[in-house]
């Protein structure tokens, strides 16, 4: 501990009280000594990556019109699936079981009239991977990306967002999300910033830690240096120096009082939480302040264009937070309870607009991370909760589709310019190397040096399916 400046202490020492057991997240459910020991924050084996930037498109991105183009849909446009050579996709034995939260839901039906691709696609890079014209900039980074075209899930409504993040169906008791597990298992990269940050809207699951405790929930941030997080600035008329004076006296009095309560881990932990809070007040706005970024950088993220500005700012903030030591940055794109990508109608209009918002900034992020040497130990994930039906819904939309969809990953420990898994010619089922959502989690854990089985909490048994399987072919 640095006695000269108590406001510059490493977080790991926050977690060690005089007795040497972790105390910051003292949680009534967890404190029973004999049962549960908090992880020491070290990876279990050599990691390839240190941090995750998680980009989640809410509502369900059409996989056939993003990263798994299906020209057969245009070829058989307007025909029913039964009239095509691929009618076996409707074979009941092939249809994966769904757990339907809403009986009689108007959405999530089998759609049999084929809807043609609403945009074209091209091959990109040396790898020649096909990417839809809605994502040309991401396409231009194809050689750095590992595309996974064979995801599947078991909720065909937007509870699938909960499922993608936690591995469990929305109707099951809530369990920690991948971000919470990473936050729980690994120590802090910074003394001044929260380790798990969420930017953007959420609806179905506003918490992350669940049985791990609220200490592992994401801290919600807004990209506004003036008002980035709850209570970041003192209400009405208290200056920074006043605040520091108050804080110093609080800590001094706590220290004196602690002599009356020896071996009390809570006082120490609370004092440390105040010190971290104090530093966060300046560190968080600083991380979100783009004044010092060059014009080129701003352009790279699309800050100079209206459509891309908002998302671009969020991604630029993510890069800055990566540099400043945040472990898991989760960015949610797509307003609304269901998520804006949920184009049951007006797919072309909707996806054109939305992809325009995210395509350039995402490519910008990849390029920026790469040129700064950060991509080598950062995992970037681009995901959504499910895909959309090859068949049309209404005149011009696609419905929810859980049987096959695409996500991609890039960065530390991952191959670039590869595709893993495949769906059939209609994009209906994941037929080659199918991956349940937890396979993405398993891959992340593996790259971060975590053996998730070692993090299991007594009394909360995890099933094999919760752990997932590492997607080996995409590992470098």
């Amino acid at each position, binding site marked *: 501990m640095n006695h000269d400046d108590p406001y510059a202490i490493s977080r790991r020492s926050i977690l060690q009280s005089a007795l040497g057991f972790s105390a910051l997240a003292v949680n009534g459910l967890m404190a*029973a000594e004999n049962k549960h020991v908090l992880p020491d924050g070290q990876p279990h084996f050599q990691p390839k990556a240190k941090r995750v930037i998680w980009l989640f498109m809410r509502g369900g991105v059409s996989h056939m019109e993003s990263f798994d183009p299906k020209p057969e849909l245009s070829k058989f446009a307007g025909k029913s699936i039964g009239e095509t050579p691929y009618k076996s996709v409707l074979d009941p034995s092939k249809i994966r079981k769904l757990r339907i939260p809403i009986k009689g839901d108007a959405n999530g039906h089998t759609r049999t009239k084929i809807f043609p691709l609403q945009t074209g696609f091209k091959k990109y890079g040396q790898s020649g991977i096909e990417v839809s014209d809605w994502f040309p900039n991401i396409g231009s980074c194809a050689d750095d990306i590992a595309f996974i075209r064979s995801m599947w899930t078991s909720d065909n409504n937007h509870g699938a967002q909960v499922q993608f993040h936690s591995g469990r169906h929305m109707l099951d008791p809530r369990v920690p999300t991948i971000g919470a597990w990473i936050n729980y298992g690994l120590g802090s990269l910074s003394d001044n910033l929260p380790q798990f940050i969420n930017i953007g809207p959420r609806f179905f699951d506003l918490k992350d830690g669940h049985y791990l*405790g609220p200490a592992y929930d994401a801290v919600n941030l807004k990209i506004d240096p003036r008002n980035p997080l*709850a209570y970041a600035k003192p*209400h009405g008329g208290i200056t920074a120096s006043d605040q520091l004076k108050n804080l110093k*006296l609080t800590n001094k009095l706590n220290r004196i009082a602690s002599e009356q309560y020896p071996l009390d881990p809570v006082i120490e932990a609370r004092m440390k939480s105040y010190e971290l809070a104090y530093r966060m007040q300046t560190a968080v706005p600083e991380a979100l302040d783009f004044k010092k970024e060059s014009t080129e950088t701003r352009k790279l993220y699309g800050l100079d264009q209206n459509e891309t500005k908002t998302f671009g700012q969020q991604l630029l903030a993510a890069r800055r937070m990566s540099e400043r030591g945040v472990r898991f940055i989760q960015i949610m794109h797509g307003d609304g309870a269901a998520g804006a990508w949920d184009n049951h109608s007006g797919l072309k209009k909707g996806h054109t607009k939305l992809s325009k918002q995210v395509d350039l900034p995402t490519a910008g992020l990849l390029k920026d991370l790469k040129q700064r040497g950060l991509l080598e130990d950062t995992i970037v994930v681009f995901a959504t909760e499910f895909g959309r039906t090859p068949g049309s819904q209404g005149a011009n939309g696609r419905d929810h589709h859980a049987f096959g969809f695409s996500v991609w990953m890039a960065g530390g420990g991952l191959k670039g310019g590869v595709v893993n898994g495949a769906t059939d010619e209609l994009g209906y089922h994941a037929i080659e190397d199918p991956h349940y959502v937890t396979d993405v989690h398993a891959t992340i854990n593996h790259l971060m040096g975590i053996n998730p089985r070692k993090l299991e909490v007594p009394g909360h048994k995890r099933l094999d399916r919760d752990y997932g399987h590492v997607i080996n072919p995409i590992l470098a």
Partner: protein
Amino acid sequence: MRALTLTILLGFSPATLFAADFSADDYLKQIKPVLKERCFACHGALKKKGKLRLDTVASMRSKDVLGKDGEMLARLMSADLEERMPPEGEALKAHEIATIKKWIVAGSPAPAGEKPEADPKSHWAFQRIERPKGFAPGKANPIDAYFAARHKAAGFVAQPAAARTLLLRRLYLDLTGLPPTVEQLASKDALPKIIDDVLKRPQYGERWGRHWMDVWRYSDWYGLGKEVRNSQKHIWRWRDWIVNSLNENKGYDQMVREMLAGDEIAPKDPEAIAATGFLARGYYKFNRTTWLDRTIEHTGKAFMGLTLNCAKCHDHKYDPIDHVDYYKFRAIFEPYQVRVDVMPGSLDLEKNGLTRVYDGNLGAATYLHKRGEEAKADKSKKISAGPPSVLAAMWEPPKPVTLPDEAWRPEMQKFVQEGVLAQAQTKVTAAQAHLEKLKRQKAGVTQNRKPAPKPVANTKQKKPVSKPAVGGSVLVDDFSKARPDLWELVGNDWRYQGGLLSLTKPSVGKSYLRSKAKHPQDFELNLKFQTTGGDKWKSVGIRFDVDQGGNNSHFVYASAYGSGKVHLAHTIEGKDVYTKALAKRPIKLNQEYTLNLKVRGLLINVALNGQFLFAYNLPRRQAGAVQLLAYDAIADFYAIEVKPLPTATVLKNASEQAKPIVVANKVPVITAGVIELAQAKLNLAKAEYALAKARIDADSARRMQLEVSLAKARVDLLDPKQAAKAAGSIKKLEADRKAGKFPAYKPLSVSKVSLIKTKNKDALPSSGGYPKTSSGRRTALAKWLTHRDHPLAARVAVNHIWMRHFGEPLVESVADFGLRAPKPLHQDLLDYLAVELIESGWDMKHLHRLMLSSKTWQRSSSNLGADKKTLAGDKSNHHYWRMNSRRMESQVVRDSLLHLAGTLDLTRGGPSIASSPNVRRRSLYFIHSRDGRSKFLATFDDADMLACYRRSESIVPQQALAMMNSQTAIAASRAIAATFKPDMDAQAFVRSAFMMILGRQPAQAELAASKTFLEQEPKRDHFIHVLINHNDFLVIR
């Protein structure tokens, strides 16, 4: 069954063949745990599938499954999924099988005296609760007597009692959730008297009400927009029932019975019926099975500590609860539905009502869902209601309940009848009065027609109107803090935080700040803001010339909808009138804008971020206020400045004349048709009155229903748009009347907010209104649960109460007393207290008294001066040789701050309120649901309304930020400081503040440090702020 094609070989003769490179001890360490984990659920004490038990070597040998070629290894290694064991999940790992093989090859050595797993029925929590043998405290406090014996046996020395004032702080916070005042801390009364007094305070019911609301998962309704998807409206009555029942000291057993079956056991008592909110809360719009699953799960966990939910898909893996038991329990709830009954006051069920349950579908059948899948329901067999078989001894079969009239025809209650009649009468009276007024006007108008006044025309702008408006003042605000001197603030969703003012929820005109002073007639206004979100229109801007009632004003706003625009409009007599003064500009979210208005006389110039947008001639002006405007938007306001417009400032002229606003006095032309319409409406009102009256006599109701339809059609006939359709209806209705075909009887108070409107067919009650009987199943459940022989209810309740006084439960897994819960260390004490509870008539205050008057509870929570041996032997305080410190729950943090500040509003009960730093009620009355949560409370581990059997106590920096920076905390510190006399000297102030906020005197060092601080920082509210951030404020020592 599985056909086994393998032969079973002779087992090896034990131990003699090979040297024991695998010992019995190795078996215990490496093999038995694996078998326990993967095999005992089916091959152990719980069940013996295939008559095989694997929990002892002896039983394995007796079935001859061991051996290198034996069945066990064969099954473990089989590639055939039909034969492989275990049949679910993954196969045993390769190394586990190898170990088993090694053991078998070594002759499967068995440990001496290996005991089989105990019969689940012998589980400690399934035994009838008795006073422990050999424990007879006599007159002594049983808790003290119990621990005295423990400490003596272990050679422990307990800590002394806590300091008096700390003890009183602990007492008040435990029982009322509010800290004691300085006067209360100074009381010299004996502790038993204080305990009794505090238990009588109504705040006790609120404090412990919130505890039980945690356990019973209280939640206000939530869903999507206006759609109720979970819980129900008006469920606050259940909360009030909890608080009132606790204050009346209703027995716990009675409370349980009322929650599960109040509609059956007290069908005439709306208070008791409100208790069934517990079951109404489980409502889930989309899926009846999900709804009932949650009811089963949480009824099991809350009252019994049984995880019945684990048996939804298969037999319970640990407890003697099988798959059928789950559906027998479901059958208890199968008939129940939710509805809302009319309550005195407003008859509008959206605004007011009694949310409750009733058996709406008496014929509903329960079937077993194979593998828990509804689609695989086994319809060949109906399952009857019943408890888990292992606890069925005290079950009495349900007896159908005949309901009184009020229960199935609530509209027959006198107050409902009177209310409906009064409402109908009011309509008749109003229609009568209107008709008469028209008749008079018609007569009067022909005599003296008033001349229509000239329309207010736009005049060409010649020179500036010189006189400034009355009271034209300068307005400057940086929104860093509330300025009630400048603004009238309306709406609950404004927050001053981080140096700016945020509107946190979109509304349509219900949230605004209106300046108290009028602005100068000729003015320049700058408003700095950013729109941060909203539903559709996302409009943010400013009104000016706002008149007294707010019905007339001009306004300029920036809308982020679509491609964005800045627009000028007027509000005239409450109606918005849009102009052509519009500039299309993209308005982005989370981007700062400065709106600039320059107004001179009737001419206005509007600019955004320094760029001129448009000029316009206003049709008229009036002296008025400025008002912040946010329509369908959430926004941050950074600053506003209003000043007189300098005469030198040049304005751009408007390009065209504005349209004049004609505000003429409307003189209606009374034609014969108008009179006829009014007469028809009067007839309708009279018919509706007659219908209401006649409905009370069911028979004529049906006739009058037709008369109403006819009268309505006659009104519609006079409307040219409806005439054709109405003519058809009249023809049909007259024919029906002639033929005596009257509509079916419809109950008066068909609920609007209950399930009857849902598309979910499962949820509909049987046709024709509410049933006249109830199944009696939930009454049977309630009686069974609170039966003297029931081993779980009292234990679970005592455990919850103990935990909330002592900081740790006696049984760790508070919602699971099944086989995974080992016998608790202090089972004797638990059982003794459970019997006390039961035999006292389930009197919870009796239990509070027992606990709080014990020396055990009154001990110091410090380790200071602890006996070394005790500290080393029991660091975690399992034997309660000292007290445990606990952190305040979120509600207590906020309530305490307000209480110390003297601003807490102790009004009890009533509908849930939207949270806001400006609201002063106790925190338990805030809206508590997934969608409506208080940010401040959420920061301090608020109850998760999905399940909160035990609150978390986290320590995270967000809490520090909240206590350092929030409006709640800072306002409280100022208000608390203001309660001290300003002439108090520093030392007295410090002492007094310590006592008030921390419940104790400061030590010398603390006093010195505080005084030094105050010398540099004489503002006392800063010192108070320091103390409320002290650990010992949040912690209950």
